[in-house]
């Protein structure tokens, strides 16, 4: 509370100030574990129309930050101010059920992602066309190949247009050909004037697509600002760690597997 709040000019959509998220080992237990702070101190503003990159190594807290911005979980300390904008995590195949047809799954998934039922139905032609499923749309999902499922998943998710779109770069989308098509579509949307938060551990991706960036390290926002400055600092630190402390890596990788993946 005592910390100075970031200034809010008219174009700020969301501001985070000293935000932390703790995991408390979940269920009630006879001997509670001490909380584990996945995010410790994150401060940045998200501005209208920008593509903000979130960069950091595995298990730095990037996925947790996305879930926090998406309103899935709540923070435990600090302040978040959302000036009334809808946010959504781009998530593929959300709520898919094997025994229903592709069409039914598309409707269910679309509603879950934030559309009204009639909106999904109105966009069904676009979904079928983009996914290239044709008549297969009325087959049960259990007859789909994994490539077909991811094509349908992406085509539905692409129809959802929240004020702020949250993207985790690790999303995998089907076969190579469709991968090219979907990332083209995604890049188009990223380059448009939509407000987007893009998470990646690749400095190259962030530099190519984003205007500004936040570097999250060990739950703390180390740098915020111009994309080139932030990625340069991130790269410098990575290079330094590679030479000085290679032993720190294995434990982090193990934890990142249990932390929940965003696909």
């Amino acid at each position: 509370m005592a910390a100075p709040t970031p200034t809010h000019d008219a174009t700020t959509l969301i501001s985070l100030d000293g935000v932390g998220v703790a995991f408390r080992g979940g269920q009630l237990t006879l001997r509670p574990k001490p909380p584990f702070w996945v995010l410790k101190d994150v401060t940045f503003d998200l501005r209208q129309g920008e593509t903000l990159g979130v960069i950091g190594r595995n298990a730095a807290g990037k996925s947790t930050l996305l879930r926090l911005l998406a309103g899935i979980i709540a923070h435990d300390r600090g302040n978040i101010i959302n000036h009334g904008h809808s946010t959504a995590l781009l998530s593929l195949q959300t709520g898919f059920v094997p025994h229903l047809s592709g069409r039914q799954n598309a409707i269910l998934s679309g509603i879950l992602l934030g559309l009204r039922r009639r909106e999904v139905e109105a966009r069904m032609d676009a979904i079928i066309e983009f996914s290239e499923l044709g008549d297969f749309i009325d087959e049960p999902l259990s007859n789909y190949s994994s490539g077909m499922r991811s094509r349908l998943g992406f085509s539905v998710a692409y129809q959802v247009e929240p004020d702020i779109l949250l993207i985790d770069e690790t999303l995998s989308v089907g076969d190579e050909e469709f991968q090219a098509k979907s990332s083209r579509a995604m890049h188009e949307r990223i380059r448009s004037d939509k407000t987007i938060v893009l998470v990646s551990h690749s400095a190259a991706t962030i530099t190519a697509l984003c205007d500004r960036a936040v570097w999250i390290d060990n739950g703390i926002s180390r740098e915020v600002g111009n994309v080139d400055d932030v990625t340069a600092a991130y790269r410098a630190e990575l290079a330094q760690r590679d030479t000085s402390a290679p032993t720190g890596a294995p434990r982090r990788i193990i934890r990142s597997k249990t932390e929940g993946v965003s696909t």
Partner: protein
Amino acid sequence: MTPKVSDIEPRSRRGGWLDPRMIDLVLYKTYADLRAEAAKTYINYLWWIVDPILSMLVFYIVFGLLLGRGGDGFVAFLLTGLVFWSWYNQTLSHAGNTILGAGGLMNQVHVPKLVFPIVTILTDFTKFCVVLAVLLVFLWLSGYAINTAYLALPVLIGIQLMLCTALSILLAGVVPYLPDLKLVVNNLIHLQFFLSGIFFAPSDIPEQYHTWFYANPMATLIESYRDILLHGAWPHAGRLMAIAFVCLVVLAAAVALIQRLDKRYPRLAQ
């Protein structure tokens, strides 16, 4: 306009639950769950009727034939109790897992957690309606005519729906924090089954225990159903109103609990 998926104001009372998108979600997910469940088996929707008939047959064989409790009207008496009991039993045995089981989904999108127990309550209610229709046909064919007391039947079903909803939402909200509760509840329901007068009439137990017997809402409800369906008599309004009142209080508390913990559940179930 773009629908609002969520905002991230902490502890805000968004009333996201009455959002028309949530009504879409509840209805479509109920429909989808029913379709998906039926699609898993060969005879699909027929199971909704065959399954309860088979389980009723078990009771008929044991109590009607083996123990010789048969006699006039015992089958109708037994079936009436069982149909309403198994609705209650099914709903409650599914309830504990509804939020806990949705872990994957909750971590992908923000969904008001009340959606999950309500969908399960509605799917179980739908299946119950089918069984109820079969029971009514059976009763009419067996000579139990429709009477004016039938007017109270929807009220009675409404009260039982409130009872199921209140307890289900409470269980759905507490079990993620206290999974052990599910095992305790299973045994309590088992006990309640024997105390609800399904295969015996309240007149079979000593008078001094009646107060306790009727404190069990299912005992009161089952007796009321039998009054209407088998005897053409009006049910005991006072007891029913008391049940409805308690259910409303529990329901309000359970809803408040789940709303309050809305953003905690995704962390418990991932």
